[in-house]
């Protein structure tokens, strides 16, 4: 077996005993230039990475209508060796009907799938920044509309573009920069762009914008005829060769939000667009045949369609906030429970109250959907009783136990008595305005679980195994076991899907195995978890959750973190440093208080003589990212030999069951062999599944 799962993990230098020399790694994509591609065109782009992209043969792109290909020929160097390619050319073909917006992409090669890059799809001609445009005198002339793609490549870099306005016009400048960097694995400072438009004749500032979408600015200004300069820089005058930006400049209306924000499935409604330069009304029908959730829709406007704008398609009956005063207990708008409420905090200090009837013992959840989709609202939500006494409050919500959002959620609140209750919603900072739209879910609390994957890519080579870890966060009374499933595996790969044990267990794993004759290929997979939840003695329901892939990210100072992304790719590559992780057994049974040792033998690739560390916990520094061992079963480090130095290939792991370890039958685990890649990363290779059982006396 030659399992390989390469993962970017941080390790303090002192802990990365031995090798500091780079070993085999997947490519980490750092930048794409230009970062935008025009709809209906095929264009060439330069992709830059850390770690070699040599051998890259495929490009995976999220969504429909965009395909990518590797243009750079993958040929050995003159010395016959593989060159280290950290710059290659890609080509993106964007269909006429492709949806504008941002796509994730990655390349696939012999070292597996890369980290994610991002590509902006735009309807306008792409203008690429030319060298030496750093002063007003050297400003690059551009024709509008355009999507200007550039790089704030070094400290003190300022990019200037010159454009002419022939007649009075409102121009919108939508800059993406910072938002293109969250997925970059190792870019520890992000760009904070600021746009300034100056009169080209006088040099006077006529408009400026800094932070609209977090660090990214949006600027809308009414221009008089004349010549102007667009100045683009990082607000701190910092720079980085990977800090790309795309600024869409046009006179098309830019719709940031719609109100009502939530629309019931199958209903048709007039949406008010929150747009620059002007709002409008557009009819919209929420489809019946698509799953509920947030959709980016394009609305007809003028002769074309708007930019994609988020709308919540609701399975709950939708109540639209009434036009009158609803800010107090007395004026609270009555809603039937359950409900999806579409509303807006129209003005500063506006408070929206909704009254509903509930019975004692009911369990109720409230969730605000707003800021996650760039509503202006940073909500705070409270449940009040009929006397106005606050009973429950939430400001920010947390998903997957990892990420915090400025939306609010109250879960599983128990109604203390029959009666009238109020959901009160406001901006935590008492702001308000057209863009402060929200969709508020008010419903019965249902048991469910969140599921997230550690990493967004898995790399195997023919005949080897690899492991994918999943972590669950159980909600609203669900405490049961979760069975993992995987869909969409590439041809030649099979999976042994483990489970997340009930009780204290939060983690499970899926061990993948590639056939010995599997060809180099890749596909995006989907991991699901299913569980039976016993509602009462007579009723059991099945729960199912699709796991959220997480791009792993290393943090300044040596920490490890995760960022949610859209795809998890399994790729079959070629063999790397560790060719095999063999175990003395695939079944292990412990009695409470008993210890057992598993012998582990690795097969090193020819010439690979670096240290290897064995482990059964997916961990970094003091944080455990996956503990698939059954409750009460631990690794006895004193009796284990986990450090394989130099050319050593044999080690052992001793597991001990605590005296009170609960009974478990065949919990799937993995023994991992970790290889340091550099001071902050290590590659993780996996054994075939190891099933650990705890039997009673």
């Amino acid at each position: 077996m030659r399992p390989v799962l390469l993962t970017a993990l941080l390790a303090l230098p002192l802990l990365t005993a031995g090798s500091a020399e780079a070993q085999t790694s997947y490519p980490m994509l750092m930048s794409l230039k230009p970062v935008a591609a025009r709809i209906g065109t095929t264009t060439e782009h330069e992709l830059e990475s850390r770690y070699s992209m040599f051998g890259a043969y495929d490009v995976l792109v999220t969504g429909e209508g965009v395909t990518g290909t590797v243009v750079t020929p993958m040929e050995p160097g003159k010395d016959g060796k593989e060159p280290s390619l950290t710059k290659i050319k890609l080509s993106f073909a964007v269909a006429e009907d492709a949806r504008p917006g941002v796509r994730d992409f990655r390349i696939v090669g012999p070292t597996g799938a890369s980290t994610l890059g991002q590509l902006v799809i735009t309807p306008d001609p792409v203008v690429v920044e030319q060298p030496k445009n750093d002063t007003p005198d050297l400003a690059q002339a551009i024709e509008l509309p355009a999507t200007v793609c550039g790089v704030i490549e070094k400290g003190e870099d300022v990019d200037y573009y010159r454009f002419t306005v022939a007649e009075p016009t409102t121009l919108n400048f939508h800059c993406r920069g910072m938002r293109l960097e969250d997925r970059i694995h190792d870019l520890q400072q992000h760009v904070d762009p600021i746009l300034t438009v100056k009169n080209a004749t006088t040099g006077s500032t006529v408009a400026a914008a800094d932070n609209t979408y977090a660090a990214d600015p949006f600027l809308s200004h009414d221009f008089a005829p004349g010549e102007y300069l667009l100045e683009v820089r990082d607000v701190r005058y910092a720079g980085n060769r990977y800090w790309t930006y795309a600024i869409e400049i046009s006179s098309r209306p830019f719709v940031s939000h719609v109100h009502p924000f939530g629309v019931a499935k199958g209903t048709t409604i007039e949406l008010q667009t929150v747009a620059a330069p002007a709002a409008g009304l557009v009819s919209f029908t929420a489809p019946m045949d698509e799953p509920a959730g947030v959709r980016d829709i394009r609305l007809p406007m003028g002769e074309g369609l708007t930019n994609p704008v988020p709308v919540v398609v609701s399975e709950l009956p939708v109540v639209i906030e009434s036009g009158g005063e609803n800010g107090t207990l007395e004026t609270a708008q009555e809603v039937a429970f359950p409900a999806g409420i579409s509303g807006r905090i129209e003005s500063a200090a506006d408070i929206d109250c909704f009254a509903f009837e509930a019975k004692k013992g009911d369990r109720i959840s409230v969730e605000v959907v707003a800021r996650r989709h760039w509503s202006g609202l940073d909500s705070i939500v409270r449940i009040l009783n009929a006397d106005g006494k606050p009973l429950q409050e939430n400001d920010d919500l947390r998903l997957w136990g990892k990420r915090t959002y400025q939306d609010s959620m109250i879960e599983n609140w128990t109604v203390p008595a029959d009666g009238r209750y109020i959901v009160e919603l406001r901006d935590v900072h008492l702001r308000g305005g057209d863009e402060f739209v929200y969709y508020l879910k008010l419903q019965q609390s249902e048991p469910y679980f969140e599921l997230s994957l550690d990493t967004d890519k898995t790399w195997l080579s023919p005949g080897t195994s690899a492991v994918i870890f999943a972590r669950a966060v159980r909600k609203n009374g669900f405490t049961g076991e979760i069975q993992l499933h995987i869909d969409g595996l590439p041809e030649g790969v099979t999976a042994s899907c483990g489970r997340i044990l009930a009780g204290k267990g939060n983690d499970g794993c899926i061990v993948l195995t590639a056939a010995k004759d599997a060809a180099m290929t890749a596909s995006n997979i989907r991991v699901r978890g299913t569980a039976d939840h016993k509602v009462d003695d007579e009723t059991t329901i099945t729960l199912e959750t699709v796991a959220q892939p997480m791009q792993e990210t290393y943090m300044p100072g040596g920490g490890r973190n995760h960022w949610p992304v859209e795809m998890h790719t399994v790729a079959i590559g070629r063999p790397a440093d560790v060719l095999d992780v063999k175990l003395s057994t695939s079944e292990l049974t412990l009695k409470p208080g008993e210890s057992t040792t598993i012998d582990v033998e690795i097969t090193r690739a020819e010439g690979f003589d670096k240290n290897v560390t064995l482990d059964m916990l997916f961990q970094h520094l003091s944080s455990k990212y996956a503990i698939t061992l059954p409750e009460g079963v631990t690794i006895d480090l004193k009796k284990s030999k986990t450090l394989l130095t130099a050319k050593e290939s044999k080690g052992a792991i001793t597991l001990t069951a605590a005296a009170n370890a609960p009974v478990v039958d065949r919990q799937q685990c993995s023994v991992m062999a970790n290889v340091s890649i550099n001071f902050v990363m290590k590659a993780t290779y996996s054994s075939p599944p190891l099933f650990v059982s705890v039997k009673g006396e």
Partner: protein
Amino acid sequence: MVTRLAVMLLLVAPTAAHAAPPLHVTPPDVQLQGNFDQTQLLVTGAALAPETADLTTQVEFTSSDASVVTVSETGLLKAAGNGQAEITITSDERTATVPVTVAGYSDSPSVPFDQQIRPILSRLGCNAGECHASQFGKGGFVLSVVGFDPNLDFNSLVRDRQQRRINFVQPEESLFLKKPTMQVPHGGGQRLLKGSSYYDTLVAWIRAGAPGPKKDTTKVTSLEVWPQERLVKPGETQQLRAVARYSDDRVVDVTHLAKFDSMDEAVLSVTPTGLVTVEGKGQAPIMVRFEGQANIALFVSPYGEPAQLADWENRNFIDELAASKFRELGIEPSHVCDDATFIRRAYLDAIGTIPQPDEVHAFVADEDPAKRDRLVDRLLGLTGDPNLDVFNDQYAAYWTLKWSDLLRNTTGGQRADEQRMWAMHNWIRESMRTNKPFDQFVREVVTAKGSIYSSGPASYYRVFRNSSDLAEATSQLFLGVRLACAKCHHHPFEKYSQADYYSFAAFFSRIGTKNSEEFGLFGREAVVMVRNSGDVRHPRTGQVLKPRPLDGDEMEHELDRRIPLAEWLTSPDNRDFARNAVNRYVSYLLGRGLVEPVDDMRATNPPTNPALMEALADHFIDSGYDLKQLIRVIMTSRLYQLDSQPTEQNASDSKFYSHFKVKRIPAEPLLDAIDQVTGVQTKFKSLPLGTRAIELPDGEYPNYFLNTFGKPRRASVCECERMPDENLGQALHTLNGDILATKIADKKGRLAQLLASDMSDAEIITELYLRTVGREPTNSEVATARQFLDESPSRDVFFQDLLWALLNSKQFLFVR
């Protein structure tokens, strides 16, 4: 106030031919209550008015019955026994009588601690910060500063150290009496005379069992002083009378208990009993303090006869009110400065930049009588024509510098703080660029919230992190009130108590932050927000204090206490807000505030021209708190355009703007000016070449020149942090430092280009004068330059020396 004084002065000439008018006595009758009540009489030849001379020290007082009331030579009445008597005042042939009634006199008088003992301790200076109210007291005897903690004071006197300081059996043997009377050694010297009324009061208090302070005792609610204003001449005297009003509406003469201080000893001196002597010319107040209240008596001692202001023409209301003050004080202002001086002054004051030679030429040659107004409009971007309003970015940069200093926007050298610092900088700059109304600007600061990266003003709550710091900063920045003293004790010069301080701090007690990931995992974004709870307690009483503005009523807001604070603060009714702003801008433009220090506005520190202060405040409010209009109205006034050269007659005036106050160019504009003249731009760390010093966003830059010339590190909200004064280090730096020398000698610099051009020596000399001091050289200067050129071994060296000399000249280094 005293605006009528100059005219009235003419009316008080001697009228010897008429019969002597009656004496006027204040108060006309007196009621004394209890053993220790005293009243100060004021005697004048006419009803009390600014021009009415004080005769109190020139008349003779006699009591009709010394067993009822005694009277001192200075007119101070003391109760001696119950009954009625009459005080007769005699001056030459004039007499007056004052009926006096004494009641409540007793063999065993009650001597309340709060009304009698604490004021005496204050009057004698025992509880001054430098004496027993210092941190550890003196000799183990600790009192609270100005008696803000009566329980502490009482314990120190009566209970501390086994009652060693008090002797109930033999009160006169009490240590706290023997020390200040120097019966035993006392480090503070003699502070108390045996047999004085203070001494007798203290003895009586001990005899009465030394009663302690009472919780619900009446408090002084106001303090009045007579006369409130006086028009005087050097050598004259004036007795003051102080009267306190208590919370139970009692009105009590406290002249003998109040403290008197001259605010300008070159003009006035004052005795502990309130007798003022006019020492010189000018305008100055006497500060009077009693029991946490303070007030002033304002004295005007004209410089000469009422001024004629022969060629004076009012250009706006500022000139009207300035002229009125000039007339009142007898000051003849200097004439209006020439055009070359004005354009340089206007450029530096409005946009922190020196004009280019062609701009000077064009302005001087322009014959339009309104050209100065037009220039001001251009500099401020008020022409309405985008092709003329070309200085708006420089205006924004320069005034952003000012407000960045005051709002203390600095990273403190912490790179992690850069994004926040820039957010605030850009917000200030955008506010200045768009001429955001000042009330809105302040409201946005005071109610700031949200991301410290996206919301510039939210930084205010990162720079100032607790309610005390926020209270002090907010009051000083936007009201000009230095509240810090009241954190620990009652403000010594103000009416503000600890309760006032912490009630004001309560507005900020619920500010907190939360983390956010909107700027990504590496963003370290913090979000300023208001928490549900958080209160401020009085540090001494432990009482939870409701938010209350200074001099205002309690106000509360369920969701954000700062909302009513901001409304109150920026309300037109709160004139202190407008006064504070206009005072700052007056100081920036005219070199001195109407109140100095500019951020120390209080009743006891009155403006030099109160009418002008009020008119400017009105104008500012009426304009919608428009800062550019405020600057405009000042810069287009004749007052602003006066020459900096004083006349012999007005040379001693330093307060009334009779001549333009010469100001050293601040550090950043000065460095920019040097760069502009030499054509060699200074490169600032982490900023692109071309960034000017006035555009620097941070308080922390490793630039020796800027540091030497006083660029503040933004450690304080005090205007004083930016030192306006010149010093030896600065002189040595421009004279001998390598920065200037290197720029002058730069091979790509301005001088090298001029020398390589076809320009004649004379033309280069002229060019250098124009670029540096904003004018052409005089014939004499040209002749001297030619002489040095002829004597110089090298043309290059001569011109480098000439430029060096010009850059070191006062005409270059100063706004004049």
